[in-house]
């Protein structure tokens, strides 16, 4: 059954390639090995789904898309190797990824040098166009500043948190969010009472939580990755500390709630994507994704790169495969409706600012609020 599908697909692809000759090579740089490989498969599956759809519909002006996949091991230094290979040896038309912010900041000059557009799902606000004016660099989803601004707003205005305590991780993803939070709370006249770090991989947060408790916090702001989120909520319950909890985007995913299904009930999160979103575009995407990938559920990066592939296809369809032209088109003209809604390049070179506030009800993330 599955094999058949693959076979048919392969034949279609082959026929397409044989019939039309030229293929358009695109690179995808993401982590597939080591501890950082959680995201790689989502990214690849999202992008590939879009690519197959586009090819099945006849490709771009009759030319098929071909995706070359590269592993960056979630390591900017490796990303620097593979992006060079993509750009200078494999001569791709565009690069998707890397997905890690520090890697993007490290390698984006190469895109400029090669005049090839680079579309990334990394979310740190540190490489907004206003700060790093690279005409070839684009972001496919809402950046973290957008999300944390919403998170803080919700925490103060709706949850009524007056003395927020923050627990955060040690990656750039967490630290960048922390910076934004530190700047945002004072705008509401609220001071963060304590900030404690939990390292990736730690399985005990007693010390940190006790410190927050002693600082008298009345709400927890969670800026960590999924596993640490699970550790944190589990231990909050153990210590019988009862405060509202609102977490960053890594808190709004099944990877977190699966690990702490009971303790996570009632937790709020700011999300970039919610699979139970009733928006028809989302519903269609989730169905297509599940059908293609054995019932696996998509996630935020999957939709971002899915959208990205359509954006790129749109650009190539209109201006051909010249990198500079594609970049110009993406920056000024590209405008499509994707899973995330309307995609259009803004002054930060972000295509969207969509995010959601949701609450976990023990099974799903119930959407409370969706912002564009």
């Amino acid at each position, binding site marked *: 059954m599955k094999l058949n599908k693959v076979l048919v697909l392969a034949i279609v692809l082959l026929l397409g390639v044989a019939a039309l000759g030229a293929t358009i090579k695109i690179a995808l740089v993401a982590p*597939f*090995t*080591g501890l950082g490989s959680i995201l*790689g498969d989502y990214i690849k599956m999202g992008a590939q789904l879009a690519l197959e759809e586009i090819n099945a519909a006849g490709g771009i002006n009759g030319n098929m898309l071909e995706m*070359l*996949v*590269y*592993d960056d*091991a*979630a*390591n*900017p*230094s*490796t990303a*620097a*190797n*593979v992006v*060079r*290979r993509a*750009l*200078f*040896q494999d001569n791709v038309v565009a690069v998707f990824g890397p997905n890690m*912010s*520090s*890697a993007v*900041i*490290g390698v984006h*000059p190469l895109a400029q040098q090669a005049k090839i557009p680079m579309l990334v799902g990394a979310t*740190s606000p*540190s490489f907004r166009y206003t700060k790093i004016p690279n005409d070839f660099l684009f972001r496919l989803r809402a950046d973290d500043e957008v999300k944390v601004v919403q998170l803080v707003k919700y925490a103060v205005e709706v949850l009524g948190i007056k003395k927020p305590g923050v627990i955060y991780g*040690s*990656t*750039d993803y967490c*630290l*960048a969010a922390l910076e934004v939070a530190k700047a945002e709370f004072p705008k509401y006249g609220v001071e963060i009472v304590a900030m404690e770090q939990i390292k990736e991989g730690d399985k005990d947060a007693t010390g940190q939580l006790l410190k927050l408790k002693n600082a008298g916090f009345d709400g927890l702001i969670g800026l960590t990755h999924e596993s640490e989120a699970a550790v944190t909520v589990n231990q909050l319950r153990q210590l019988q500390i009862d405060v509202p909890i609102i977490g960053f985007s890594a808190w709004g995913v099944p990877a977190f709630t699966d690990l702490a299904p009971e303790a996570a009930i009632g937790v709020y999160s700011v999300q970039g994507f919610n699979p139970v979103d009733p928006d028809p575009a989302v519903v269609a995407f989730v169905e297509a994704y599940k059908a293609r990938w054995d019932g696996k559920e998509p996630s935020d990066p999957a939709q971002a790169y899915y959208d990205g592939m359509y954006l790129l296809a749109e650009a190539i369809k209109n201006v051909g495969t010249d990198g500079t032209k594609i970049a110009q088109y993406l920056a000024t003209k590209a405008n499509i409706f994707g899973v995330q809604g309307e995609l259009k390049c803004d002054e930060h070179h972000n295509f969207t600012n969509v995010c959601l506030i949701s609450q976990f009800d023990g099974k799903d993330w119930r959407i409370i609020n969706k912002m564009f």
Partner: protein
Amino acid sequence: MKKLLFIAGAILAIILFPILNKNMYHLYLMNRALIHAILATGLVFLTGFAGQISLGQAGFYAIGAYSSAYFTVKLGMPIPVGIIIGIAISVLAGFLLSIPSFKLKAFFLSLVTIAFGQIVWMLVINLTPITGGPYGFFGIPFYSLGNKMLSFGQVFWIFGALLVLCVYIMFRIKHSHFGRAMLAMNDDDVATESCGISTKRLKIAAFGFAAGLAGLAGALYAHLAGFLSPEPFTFFESSNFVAMAVVGGLRHMSGGVVGGIGLTLLPEFLRFGGWENYYLMVTSLIVIVIIIFMPMGLGPILENLFRKTFRLKRSNTKTL
């Protein structure tokens, strides 16, 4: 004569490579390979000759990289000065790390070196004002002459020359009273001391030398890549460095070079085309297989091959 031939061959290869191959990716990769070769050469010296284990070499690599980056970017020093400062700080750290080795043997020492690597790595992450922390350190100047940027090919020549220099220094030291003393210490501490040799000083020197080469490698990397982030300085990298030294051949001059270049290129050949999930498994299996079948490393085997093809005899000053 034969030695000259060998050296001439090596130099010729280094000179020709960038002329024959202008692919930016290949050159960049070879530059990284040379950097790793320099670092692994230091490890061959430290472990193969002096008998001290270090599983924290990425720590020195980081110190060299961030120091040079800091001094060139934040304090505006020229690149060579930055590199020298990077080496100097690494060497000092190396001296410091040699202190536990006076008392600690083998695996107790290896834990200390792991801890050292972890401490440096966590300092890199947490000393954000100096290192940029997990955000990374950006805008590190690339090699240039006057105000003309060098090409990757020219950089390759510089790195190649540095590597040859490092191996040459190690070669001379190995075939001197210092090298003999180190090999002796590797066999038997007490007997070496009884020969009137201070093993403490030898250990300090060996750690210093290896740290210096790692620092040099780090500094070279910083200016090659143009940015730094904590990821290339983890325990995983430290263990890769040791793997390079072992795969190349711990007790051989060429060990670091063969292992450093080999283990940099191997995963790059496999990282693509549907292999992206599997290549690390394959690479680690290949390394295991090499160790199982050739625990003495690839270096000596290549040396023999070279000897056979050029019909060279083994030199008669036998070093066992």
